[in-house]
């Protein structure tokens, strides 16, 4: 059984604490006995390389994208290159706005030694000018796996759109509560539970158990691509 927390923000997300740097997150993974995590910043992949170097082998490249309807969608990738290509593509759909890090939060790009490299200057907390359907199209075209994030909470698909849209390409949903988990399963999804950590102590407060013998990224990715209730177990199973 593999324990995974597949929704963790780094210091690049404006809403996350600036202490979410590679050494701290890597330490927390050990403390909380997580076998694998995914770094999923808002609308950007610019910290993935640094985190991958630091937490080598325990890492799935990811991103949390915001659609035009302000629905959060997670996307997981088999390689950092694929994730980065998608992020480069969607960047042009991010509205340009004046951005004050003091007010709206710092967006810090770090290296694997936790050293400051740069500040992301475009505000990442905005909705991409892409409809939910188009966003899922794009994720699939970059061979990513789309997942509705925290379905029953703010910016979750149920919260924003009332009912699930009909889209067979999205097989996974992420729930925060047992009620959300039940709703997701009833609607035919395989349901993940992750922390959505914005601070170090939140890492691992929710996780998903994958019925896989050994830690093998390819196998885990295969399970995410063709998910089944037998292989994806939440904390409520």
């Amino acid at each position, binding site marked *: 059984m593999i324990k995974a927390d597949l929704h963790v923000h780094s210091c690049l997300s404006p809403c996350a604490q600036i202490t979410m740097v590679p050494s701290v997150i890597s330490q927390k993974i050990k403390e909380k006995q997580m076998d694998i995590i995914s770094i999923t910043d808002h609308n950007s992949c610019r910290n993935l390389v640094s985190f991958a170097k630091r937490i080598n082998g325990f890492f799935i490249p990811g991103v949390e994208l915001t659609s035009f309807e302000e629905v959060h969608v997670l996307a997981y990738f088999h390689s950092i290159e694929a994730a980065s290509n998608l992020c480069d593509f969607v960047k042009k759909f991010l509205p340009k706005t004046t951005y004050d890090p003091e007010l709206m939060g710092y967006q810090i790009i770090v290296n694997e030694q936790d050293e400051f490299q740069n500040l992301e200057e475009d505000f990442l907390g905005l909705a991409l000018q892409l*409809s939910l359907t188009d966003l899922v199209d794009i994720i699939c075209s970059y061979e990513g796996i789309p997942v509705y994030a925290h379905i029953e909470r703010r910016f979750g698909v149920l919260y924003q*759109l*009332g009912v699930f849209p009909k889209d067979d390409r999205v097989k996974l949903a992420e729930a925060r509560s047992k009620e959300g988990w039940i709703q997701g399963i009833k609607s035919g999804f395989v349901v993940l539970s992750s922390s959505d950590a914005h601070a170090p102590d939140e890492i691992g407060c929710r996780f998903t158990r994958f019925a896989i013998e050994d830690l093998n990224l390819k196998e885990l990715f295969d399970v995410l691509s063709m998910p089944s209730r037998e292989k994806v177990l939440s904390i409520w199973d």
Partner: protein
Amino acid sequence: MKISQVVERLGLEVCCGNCEQEILYGCSGDLLSEVMSHAKPSSIWVTVQSHVNIVAVAAISGIKAIVLCNDHKYPQETIVKAEHEGICLLKTSKSPFEVAGLLYSIGIKS
């Protein structure tokens, strides 16, 4: 008041639906879960949300007409679904604030 009267007085564009239906109330909002829990039957709904699910929300809540503001456009999918459900889709370049104010001023209350 009939939807057609509202259309005329606010200068709205009709995208589809039967404008001879009567509306009694108004509501506004872009969070579909919020509208589902608060809208009264026979309402006209002011929003910037155009996702196809607005039609389902309208059908569930008994909303008869939707006004899409700020010059946003309905996706084809939304129009097809609305025609099927008999929901009247309207649009305007006016802001939701202005449309809500105008509706209120002609006697549509929440």
